[in-house]
């Protein structure tokens, strides 16, 4: 792959999701009927949406008590449906109870029923969790993800990492704007943690920020965030499917590696348009499926510039802003101030 191509597509998504678990089973219909998370848009939409709960009762009554906040994401790797960022927060001295009493743990160890029930409990106005946990989600639609990544070269692409970071920062800001006394933030990341932590710390200088891989298995509040995100994503995807194609079709989990997803993608190609707005056209899997199924070639302005490195300065700036510049090195170069890449 040439350097120019690497700039256009900074992340090979399929390779970038080492933690992906493939679930071929569909969400249980009986779960769906009596519970729909408030964070899920009632109607399929092309537009990204944000959901934010009011400040929970216990935190309102103890406004000076420090609060911890967790951040996690669901649906980064799939070719279908939205990517959801979730945050949840609670009093710092309540966090351990999340794990001991309710079993908030590594989301990979919780099955779908368990996850859905936990979110249901958080949403149950009569329950303890409702009074203790505040949460928020940002549902980034497939169309917003794709169009950001596929912006024309004259505008510059908005890569998945930047989209993810911006969503996270907006969610944290949303809670701060409510007046919650946040002191510590724990962030789960699949990418390089060092530069991301520095970026968040710069944006929120008064908060203690910890970015870690697999944070959802270490910090119960991140586990709660991961459940908010994951359940929202699963219900959103299923809703879109039912509303666009009917409940009888199967498209699997949406991950490119899921055979049901692959089958659906390959069978649903329209020669000109490809698919509806649920598919992430920027994924290599989607691009390949269009070609494989005799889709008509559509050429865009950038397709003629593949072999051109373009503005070399921009290439470096892009690289630096992606946050990959430092983490590739075995040691931190933060000692020396700004990396030379940034100039």
């Amino acid at each position, binding site marked *: 792959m040439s350097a120019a191509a690497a700039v256009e597509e900074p992340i090979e998504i399929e390779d970038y999701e080492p933690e992906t678990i493939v679930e071929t089973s569909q969400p249980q219909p009986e779960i769906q009927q009596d519970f729909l998370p408030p964070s899920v848009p009632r109607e399929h939409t092309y537009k990204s949406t944000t959901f934010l709960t009011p400040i929970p009762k216990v935190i309102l009554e103890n406004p000076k008590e420090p609060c911890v906040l967790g951040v996690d994401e669901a649906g980064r790797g799939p070719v279908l449906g939205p990517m959801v960022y979730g945050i949840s927060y609670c009093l710092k001295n309540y966090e351990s109870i999340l794990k001991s009493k309710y079993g908030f743990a590594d989301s990979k160890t919780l099955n779908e029923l368990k996850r859905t029930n936990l979110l249901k409990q958080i949403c149950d106005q009569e329950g303890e969790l409702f009074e203790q946990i505040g949460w928020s989600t940002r549902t980034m639609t497939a169309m917003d993800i*794709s169009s950001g990544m596929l912006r*024309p070269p004259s505008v510059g692409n908005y890569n998945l990492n930047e989209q993810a970071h911006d969503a996270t920062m907006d969610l944290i800001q949303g809670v701060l704007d409510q007046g919650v006394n946040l002191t510590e933030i724990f962030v789960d990341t699949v990418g390089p943690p060092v530069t991301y932590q520095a970026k968040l710390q710069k944006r929120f200088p008064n908060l203690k920020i910890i970015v870690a891989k697999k944070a959802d298995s270490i910090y119960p509040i991140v586990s709660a965030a991961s459940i908010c995100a994951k359940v929202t994503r699963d219900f959103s995807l299923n809703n879109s499917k039912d509303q666009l194609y009917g409940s009888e079709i199967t498209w699997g989990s949406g991950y490119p590696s899921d055979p049901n997803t692959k089958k659906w993608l390959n069978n649903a190609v329209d020669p000109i348009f490809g698919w509806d707005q649920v598919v992430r056209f920027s994924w290599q899997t989607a691009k390949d499926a269009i070609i494989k199924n005799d889709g008509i*070639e559509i050429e865009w302005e950038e397709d003629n510039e593949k072999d051109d490195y373009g503005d070399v300065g921009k290439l470096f700036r892009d690289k630096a802003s992606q946050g990959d510049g430092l983490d590739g090195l075995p040691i931190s170069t933060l000692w020396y101030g700004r990396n030379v890449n940034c100039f």
Partner: protein
Amino acid sequence: MAEERNIDLQSAKTYKVNSIPCRIRYTGPHSSIPKHLIKIQENQEIITYLRGRKLHGKSITNIKGVVLAKDDMSDEIKSLGQVNEVQYYEREGVSIDQVEKIDEFVKLSELIHG
């Protein structure tokens, strides 16, 4: 070349043209356009998506056009219908101010030839 032909411009069918910033390697009818070409009115613009790209456009209605087709057998040119609207699209982040210039051009043209 400049042979005069009588073309029937009164054909009842009207077409809307979508001018989009890409090259589609296909010429001909396509039945799924109404299903897939979703247009969203946002502020003063029309938003649509094609192959994951976001396009924004404006409508030009004060123009007239004709859709012509040449009959391969008789070499005769027939009018298939009229164009009463052009929707001009650009990529996300690229200005569509050219639309205003089309307006200007039409006005100027009317002044000269009117």
